């Protein structure tokens, strides 16, 4: 089976691996009894689900950074916005089971002595509305931000700093109680989603499965984008934007499209993340989070979509392990790893792997480049 896997194109490889991992984890969790060597605990399923949300976020960043040279230091903001959209829906599902027992208002609003839902909470109890918001909130922000930045031809370091400022500003705004998003504490104590308890193992397993499916679908879409004609143009923009303009392409519209698409993916990742970890708070907007995404992608291998996934999973796993043993050492380890990878493995972890098992490429050009 392994030999067969080696002959597939990268999309087929990634989708097969995700399918195998997803099915294995779900079966191992349900079929094997606890204590069995093959058993995968519900805790591990949950943890893996969280990593895969990070993987989707890393994929989104790699699309803009690896393929179009847009180094966003604010992708955490789109992730958090998607998460907040989901969080609002989950808050409303609590209903009168909150501490204050108010059927209409979430606890934090009762605490603030508000007597009705603010306008931007209208509709948040609808699942469909929530899905729309998960896509629209990050999508619109990215579209407006991208349209302004790219049409004014802001790029490079300046753009990175602006994205960083954007997420920082949002963090400060969401920290305020008056914003109406739970302030400092954010939103938590979720009870159920579509009527299914979030505490039940089955719901968690379904959420995990959904994350696997969505990650695979997103991978397929990203791969389609980077290999189609638009993808070639996007790569060309990365290498020589002014030349692309002279050939007659409005490079800004390509960048706005890619940035918006990537932000929507990040938002979806956030929405899948929140029910699995059970909390969303303004800390998700923190600039450090966004920088960590960049490090995942750099360590995994920038400009290869699967590298982003590998980077996110490997680094997050290392973080879980290391923060368990020595919490204060994590940031040093992360920094050190980043420096080592940049110096020794400029193509990231997948650079090592690709040398041994080159994937079947779609175009002969890439074959010749290797």
């Amino acid at each position, binding site marked *: 089976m392994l030999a067969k896997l080696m002959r597939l194109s990268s999309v087929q490889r990634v989708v097969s691996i995700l399918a195998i991992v997803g099915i294995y984890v779900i079966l191992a969790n349900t079929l094997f009894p606890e204590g069995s060597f093959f058993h995968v605990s519900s805790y591990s399923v949950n943890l893996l689900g969280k990593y895969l949300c990070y993987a989707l976020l890393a994929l989104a960043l790699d699309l803009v950074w690896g393929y179009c040279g847009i180094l966003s230091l604010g992708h955490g903001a789109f992730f958090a916005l998607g998460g907040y959209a989901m969080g609002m829906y989950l808050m409303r599902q609590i209903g009168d089971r909150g501490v204050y027992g108010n059927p209409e208002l979430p606890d934090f609003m009762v605490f603030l002595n508000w007597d009705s839902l603010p306008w931007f909470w209208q509709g948040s109890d609808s699942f469909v509305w929530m899905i729309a918001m998960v896509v629209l909130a990050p999508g619109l922000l990215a579209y407006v931000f991208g349209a302004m930045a790219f049409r004014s031809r802001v790029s490079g370091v300046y753009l990175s700093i602006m994205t960083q400022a954007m997420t920082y500003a949002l963090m400060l705004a969401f920290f305020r109680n008056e914003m109406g998003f739970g302030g400092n504490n954010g939103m938590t104590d979720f009870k159920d989603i579509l009527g299914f308890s979030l505490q039940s193992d089955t719901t968690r397993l379904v959420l995990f499965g959904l994350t696997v499916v969505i990650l695979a679908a997103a991978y397929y879409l990203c791969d389609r984008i980077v290999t*189609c004609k638009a993808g070639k143009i996007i790569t060309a923009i990365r290498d020589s934007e002014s030349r692309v*303009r002279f050939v007659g392409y409005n490079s800004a519209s390509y960048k706005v499209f890619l940035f918006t698409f990537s932000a929507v993916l990040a938002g979806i990742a956030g929405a899948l993340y929140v029910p699995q970890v059970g909390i969303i708070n303004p800390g998700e907007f923190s600039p450090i989070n966004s920088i960590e995404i960049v490090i995942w992608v750099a360590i995994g291998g920038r400009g290869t979509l699967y590298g982003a996934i590998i980077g996110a999973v490997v680094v997050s796993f290392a973080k879980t392990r290391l923060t368990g043993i020595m919490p204060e050492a994590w940031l040093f380890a992360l920094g050190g790893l980043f420096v080592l990878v940049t110096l020794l493995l400029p193509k990231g972890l997948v650079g090592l792997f690709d040398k041994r098992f080159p994937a079947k490429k779609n175009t002969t050009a890439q074959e010749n480049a290797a």
Partner: protein
Amino acid sequence: MRPAMMTPEQTGPDTRHGMILYMENVSVSFDGFKALNDLNLYIKEGELRCLIGANGAGKTTLMDVITGKTRPDTGTVSYGQQFNLLQHNEEQISRLGIGRKFQKPTVFEALSVKDNLYLSLKMDKGIWTSLWHNLSGEQKDDIDRILHTIGLTEHRDRPASVLSHGQKQWLEIGMLLAAKPKLLLVDEPVAGMTVSEAERTAELLTSLAGEHSVVVVEHDMGFVRSIARTVTVLHQGSVLAEGTMDAIQSDPEVKKVYLGEEGNA
């Protein structure tokens, strides 16, 4: 602009008077330095024109003004009789049919030779088209024909980054041709080329004139002599002399400021 039903890209420049480009009284200054000084230049349809001039004479600035990269302080630039190029940006000017080859070869290094031409084809350049586009048979033929013209057929699938300097220059000319331009601006095509490469480039450019109007900026006098029918000499941002190579070389003004400085070519 005339109220036609067709888009500007479809109508093409109005060249009923035989001229494709008019530049009148164009001045550009950078921090007080006059890069172009009251310049007047007319290019006929289908002609092959060489621009020569010492460093700083304004050759590259002139190209920048035509392609919309630099806006002149004063003057008018029109393409055919109806397009005021000063009202269009780089992408629009490119779509109107003015192609430019840069001094330094700038091909898309990460893409294959074929894909470099693919991106340069004259077609809708919007994002939605690009997301769903597949090459039509006609477009494949266009690409094959251009590959043949520029002599890179056997390198079609190789990434542009591995081409030699001369091959990159040809690829760039091919990219211009793919856009089916009316006016080609070619900046120092033979800089850094071997003698045989320069000869092939001369053949290529001569074969393009007629169907296209070609403006070549070049330092290499031997090369200019081998291709030029009309030569324009720029000096300090304006036209010093214009005529055949022989007439230019015997012009006393030109001898004094240009050929005199560079030695008798």
